[in-house]
């Protein structure tokens, strides 16, 4: 054999192969792992040492007697081996002469449905296994629905263990018709049903003589030819900017992975959010500039003009722009043990952009067995709901059905940082169609203009007794003298009314500040200058309040008084009680105070009079143009 020639042939063949990413899903014990093991075994991708260790393991852990237990090839984690079920997504790789495959083996057990969604999000096809003896189960329906929800358009229904029902066509036909009755309401482009036995290799690689009534292709032959091309390259151009490349002053490149369409030097682009346009000058790579790049390529572009662009922006085709909005409707799959709370603030990450978001309305949840809608106030783990999401800042996006990369997002818990939800955008809720936004004509700016001021929040933070309320009071008086419209939210007055139901646990403290933040936001919307005087000991809460407001609307005023001085003042006798153990969770005594790192103003009350500090704050507002 002439090696280089064989090599060239081999490499040429490799180049031509397309890649199919698919997932296998089904209920516990339907034989997913066995099927993948069988595919790896029969496509001769197992190495001799892996085989030897497999034979050894089969005797030790196997559930198939003397035969090789293929599932052991795939079930990687110790816990799974012992329980005989797959608990996480495992990725496997194999290839035939026609195609390369990446298969996601996803969990069957209900508590790992989120892992299945993970596998589905990166797959083009789903193989749904059904145990021929059991027929279509709840899990089968759930998995078919989630596959469709995550945009998988191609389904293979693998009716497994057909040997255990005597290769019966009647059983097969009845399962297929059951499944179709359900899947007719899902949006699949192709559905192919195949009777198989993963354990004995029936209709996996080769057509079996045991099922003469089956006229279709065996599984692998179908996977080799099924056309799943989503033609992302033909969609409108989208480049979510991941990183701005600035090695020196002369070079400014915008790096990211193209999420849709194609791009050439000379093409016009628009920055979706700002609407600024420019032209692409170069597609820069280490191996020289490229004439064109398409969806899926990781690129660095340079532009003809100095345009303000940062991470999170989307560069797009000016003739087919993405939607820019701060509200949209979406399907949401909940992935956390802690249930979804509408109104709570989460972080939303879409493409390369991250920002605060909340579920403003939970329209309904979807029963995955019947696809019916039910009213709901919350979503539990593995439940799917249809929701409205509202963002702190507008984002550029597409509908998920048009583009997975610019239409799919995750929600992150702000405190645990866990990924708690996966969402698929359905459509934008334009302000005009939003019932909460009827009075666009009299908006914040109009209301502020009538009052001759710019609305803002002065957020006073500091220890109990530091002087927050005293100074805030003096500031409000001084503003009133100048004819400005203000409102003071004070720890005590709010806790007696709006927040009467809240105590001092961590959760209640967070909710307390959230409500104060929201109330302040409404007052700002009304055009007022709002002063808040709360200990607000945690940075994350203060950040949450800051993010509710616009960029120039929030000023943190740190009333920096040493705790010894506060204790000495002790205007309400609280330190005395706390030290005696009569008050729990008292800030500075047995609960921490996290001082601000970047407050707009810091007031040292041990120096100067309260009156002088108040005047300084008023001067600050005047200098910044807030007092008209």
């Amino acid at each position, binding site marked *: 054999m002439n090696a280089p020639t064989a090599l060239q042939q081999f490499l040429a063949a490799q180049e031509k192969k397309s890649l199919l990413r698919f997932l296998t899903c089904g209920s516990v014990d339907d034989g997913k792992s066995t099927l993948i093991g069988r595919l790896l075994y029969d496509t001769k991708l197992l190495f001799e040492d892996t085989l030897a260790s497999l034979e050894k393991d089969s005797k030790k852990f196997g559930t198939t007697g003397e035969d090789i237990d293929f599932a052991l090839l795939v079930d990687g*984690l*110790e816990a799974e081996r012992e329980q005989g079920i797959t608990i*996480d997504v*495992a990725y496997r790789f194999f290839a035939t002469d026609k195609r390369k495959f990446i298969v996601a083996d996803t969990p069957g057990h209900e508590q790992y449905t989120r*892992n299945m969604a993970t596998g589905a999000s990166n797959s083009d096809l789903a193989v749904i296994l059904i145990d021929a003896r059991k027929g279509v189960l709840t899990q089968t329906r759930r998995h078919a629905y989630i596959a469709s929800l995550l945009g998988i358009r191609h389904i293979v229904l693998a009716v497994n263990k057909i040997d255990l029902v005597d290769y019966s066509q009647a059983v097969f036909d009845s399962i297929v018709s059951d499944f179709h009755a359900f899947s007719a309401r899902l949006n699949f482009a192709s559905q192919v049903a195949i009777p198989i036995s993963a354990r004995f290799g029936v209709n996996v690689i080769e057509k079996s003589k045991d099922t003469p009534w089956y006229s279709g292709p065996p599984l692998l032959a179908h996977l080799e030819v099924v056309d799943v091309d989503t033609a992302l390259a033909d969609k409108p151009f989208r480049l979510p900017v991941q990183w701005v490349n600035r090695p020196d002053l002369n070079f400014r490149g915008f790096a990211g992975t193209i999420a849709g369409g194609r791009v050439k030097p000379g093409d016009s682009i628009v920055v979706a959010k700002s609407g600024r346009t420019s032209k692409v000058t170069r597609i820069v790579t*280490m191996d020289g500039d490229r004439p064109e790049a398409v969806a899926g390529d990781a690129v660095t572009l340079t532009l003809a003009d100095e345009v303000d662009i940062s991470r999170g922006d989307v560069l797009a085709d000016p003739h087919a722009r993405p939607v820019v909005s701060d509200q949209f409707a979406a399907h949401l799959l909940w992935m956390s043990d802690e249930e979804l709370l509408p109104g709570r603030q989460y972080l939303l990450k879409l493409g*390369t952009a991250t920002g605060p978001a909340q579920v403003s309305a939970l329209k309904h949840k979807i029963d995955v067995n019947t696809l019916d809608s039910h009213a709901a106030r919350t979503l539990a783990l593995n439940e799917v709901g249809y929701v409205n999401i509202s963002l702190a800042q507008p984002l550029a996006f597409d509908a998920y059905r048009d583009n997975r990369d610019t239409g*799919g997002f995750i929600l992150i818990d702000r405190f645990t940082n*866990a990924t708690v939800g996966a969402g698929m955008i359905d459509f934008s809720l334009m302000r005009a169609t939003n019932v909460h936004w009827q009075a666009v004509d009299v908006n914040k700016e109009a209301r502020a203009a009538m009052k001759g001021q710019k609305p803002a929040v002065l957020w006073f933070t500091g220890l109990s007794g530091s002087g927050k309320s005293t100074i805030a009071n003096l500031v409000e008086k001084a503003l009133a003298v100048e004819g400005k419209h203000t409102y003071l939210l004070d720890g005590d007055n709010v806790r007696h009314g709006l927040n009467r139901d809240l105590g001092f646990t961590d959760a209640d403290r967070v909710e307390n500040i959230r409500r104060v933040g929201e109330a302040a936001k409404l007052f700002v919307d009304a055009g007022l200058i709002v002063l808040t005087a709360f200990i607000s000991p945690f940075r994350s809460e203060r950040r949450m309040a800051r993010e509710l407001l616009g960029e120039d609307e929030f000023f943190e005023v740190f009333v920096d008084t040493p705790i010894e001085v506060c204790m000495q003042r002790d205007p309400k006798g609280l330190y005395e009680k706390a030290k005696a153990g009569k008050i729990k969770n008292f800030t500075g005594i047995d609960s921490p105070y996290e001082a601000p790192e970047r407050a707009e103003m810091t007031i040292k009350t041990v120096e100067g009079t309260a009156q002088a500090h108040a005047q300084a704050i008023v001067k600050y507002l005047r200098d910044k143009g807030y007092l008209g």
Partner: protein
Amino acid sequence: MREVAAEFANPVMLYSIGKDSSVMLHLAMKAFYPSKPPFPLMHVDTTWKFKEMIDFRDQTVERLGLKLITHINQDGVKRGINPFDSGSSLHTQVMKTESLKQALDKYGFDAAFGGARRDEEKSRAKERIFSFRTASHAWDPKNQRPELWRVYNTRINKGESIRVFPLSNWTELDIWQYILAENIPIVPLYFAKKRPVVERDGTLIMRDDERMTLRPGEKVEDRLVRFRTLGCYPLTGAIESDADSLEDIVTEMFTARTSERQGRLIDSDEKASMEKKKKEGYF
């Protein structure tokens, strides 16, 4: 990689000098071009690496003009840990796993790139691309963050970190084809050459220095061998081969019948040993 550079304060690239590291480094050079990768490389040196690996490492860093941090677990050196007397498992635990943790703590890295691939080993098949580690560097396979689309959750609290595996979806064959296509420099040990080897417990060990003492009946022979994977020389088995060019290696690959980690003695020590090591903080 650019996601990490954009989202983390203090990332680092773990550079093991092997072929996967070479590919990963090459990708980083391309991803940030014309800038240099905005993070240092770090090599956790067990003091038992092949001499040729260390030479190659130093040349590479010099050629590319990058910053390299080398970390050796001095505590382990003092304790005299070595792969012959301590056993491969203790040696790996102390000189690699512990050492890596020390280094990550010392420099306060919040994200570390590794060249691991999902096709290497069963528990790695379930690894995320962005894999969360607790403040004590532990991996909890049952509590991994779901990873949807190409949206990676990069949020961590102080002290926690993320391990990032950009080559997760590459196979060994992909690696070699890419090295061939891009002409990426690799350590010469991957190419066949006459080398002094000792046959021990059915594995060919290259005697890289005098620290390896011969057992009765063992003798050093010059044989034409190469390595499919590189680690500590006493723990890395050579294969007999005459593949002395990239083309020959890829040709050998598509007829190969033995998986690459078999040359690594540490994996077969105990069943599910990789999973154990990973929970403890190994890459």
